[in-house]
């Protein structure tokens, strides 16, 4: 098992915590400790808003080990509102509904499973941005929309509602 390996990146994966360069002000995600623009050391942690838009996308049909049960799934490059691009899956959306420029927001979901008795790895995915002024209190009280079960009998991925610690 590789518990420590995943544990040490939980802030990035659960909360989208990156860095800010104290020299040039650039927001950096994923965190890399040295600003890619000015070369200054950048260790000031910053939480990103999780808002962004689709820069490009594709669909994975032949998955790597640990991702087989999720196929087909949509992968994307998302341009975060703060500037950086991030690689992530899109969720709660059908491929035919995705377009370049589509507004999206971050959610926390299961990324991979290491077998029946192995670890569940959680992390960020992005879904179509929900309207902000549309009965927000009721919407928050309702369960998050879950994708319909696939026709081939594969169950939808588990949905994590609360932010992870």
């Amino acid at each position, binding site marked *: 098992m590789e518990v420590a390996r995943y544990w040490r*990146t939980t802030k990035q994966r659960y909360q989208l915590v990156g860095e800010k360069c104290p020299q040039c002000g650039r927001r950096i995600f*994923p965190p*890399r400790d040295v600003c*890619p623009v000015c070369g200054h050391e950048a260790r000031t942690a910053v939480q990103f808003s999780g808002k962004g838009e689709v*820069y*490009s*996308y*594709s*669909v*994975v*049909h*032949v*998955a*790597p*080990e*640990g*991702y*087989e049960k*999720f196929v087909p*799934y949509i*992968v*994307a*490059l998302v341009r975060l509102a703060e500037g*950086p*691009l*991030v*690689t*992530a*899956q899109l969720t709660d959306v059908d*491929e035919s509904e995705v377009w*370049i420029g589509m507004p999206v927001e971050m959610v926390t979901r299961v*990324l*991979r499973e290491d077998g029946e008795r192995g670890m569940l*790895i959680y*992390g960020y995915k992005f879904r179509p941005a929900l309207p902000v002024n549309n009965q927000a209190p009721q919407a928050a009280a309702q369960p998050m929309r879950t994708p319909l079960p696939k026709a081939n009998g594969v169950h939808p991925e588990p949905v994590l509602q609360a932010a992870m610690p």
Partner: protein
Amino acid sequence: MRDVSIIGIGQTPVGEHWDKSLRELAYQALLAAMQSAGVERVDALYVGNMLSGELTAQEHLGALIADFAGLRGIEAIKVEAACGSGAAALRVGYMAVASGLCDLVACIGVEKMTDQQGSTVTSALAMAADAEYEALQGLTFVSINALLMRRYMHEYGYRKEDFANFAINAHANAVNNPYAMFRSPITAAQFAEAKPIADPINLLDSSPIADGAACVILAPTSIAREFTDKPVRVRAIAIATDTLAVHDRRDPLYLEGGALSAQKAYAMAGVGPADIDVFELHDAFTIMSALSLEAAGFAPRGQGVRLAMDGEIGLNGRIPITTMGGLKARGHPVGATGMYQIVEVAQQLREEAGLNQVKNAQLGMAQNIGGSGATVVTTILERI
């Protein structure tokens, strides 16, 4: 620094070699190259390979292949730079000879991929990407290229079929290459109907995984003619890097590492793109051909596909590419690919390319790409 030349070349056919192990493939290519150079021993052996540990549970390839080839005692190490491993091994060999530390050096690229099933190979290839921020998201090597291709089509207004000629040209050239994996031509209609893999990439955009090994022998140019009457001079070889992850690039549609390594190589050789007669580029996917042509200065940004659409990439075109089939049709044994490119450029410059011979080829270039552009090796070779 000493001038360096290739004095011998060797390769195995690319394909599914169920009956041959990694060490046997490497030895076969090494032996062919040593015979071609007429040498019985080398001072050092550099082995380019990406996935031997993951796919065949075998590392320590330097000692393994030196031992198996009867060269026990010599300096021998493995060099790894993802799919750029083959040409990276050539760079190490070049430095050894140019520096004066070694006289005769063998550089091998070898990969054995067909011992494992698809999902294992898919996971292994994804190791070229950022494990924590790309592969963990379930990204595959194909889907990374699909992200680039979709954005490229979006920004520059191309259609899917505009990329067809990269694949058609590669297959047409592979027909005459006895070492190629797919020696059958394809049509535009077949390209249009090919099975989607990761939209917009389909089967005929994509190079096949395979087994294979290729090898060159290097020597100082001053003594090269003692071994062969067809030495090929290494005018330049340069490695440059870019961010490992595509999302960290300043512009994902520009191969900065490709541009940088090409510029370094042009400067080292004192030539420019207009002087290149043959260009073996890294067509792992058709989008990579377009990006590589742009990075190496053969087309302005967003115009790489035009060269294919306008028929400029054929054997008689402005810049012939993938003249022996490229990754697409010769096959893509990942860590060996860079060395196949070098062997094929050398074939052109030695007038050994048969029906695919580019007339009066004096200067040839190869660009070998690791990952989706994080390592790029550009090599310029010259007939002397």
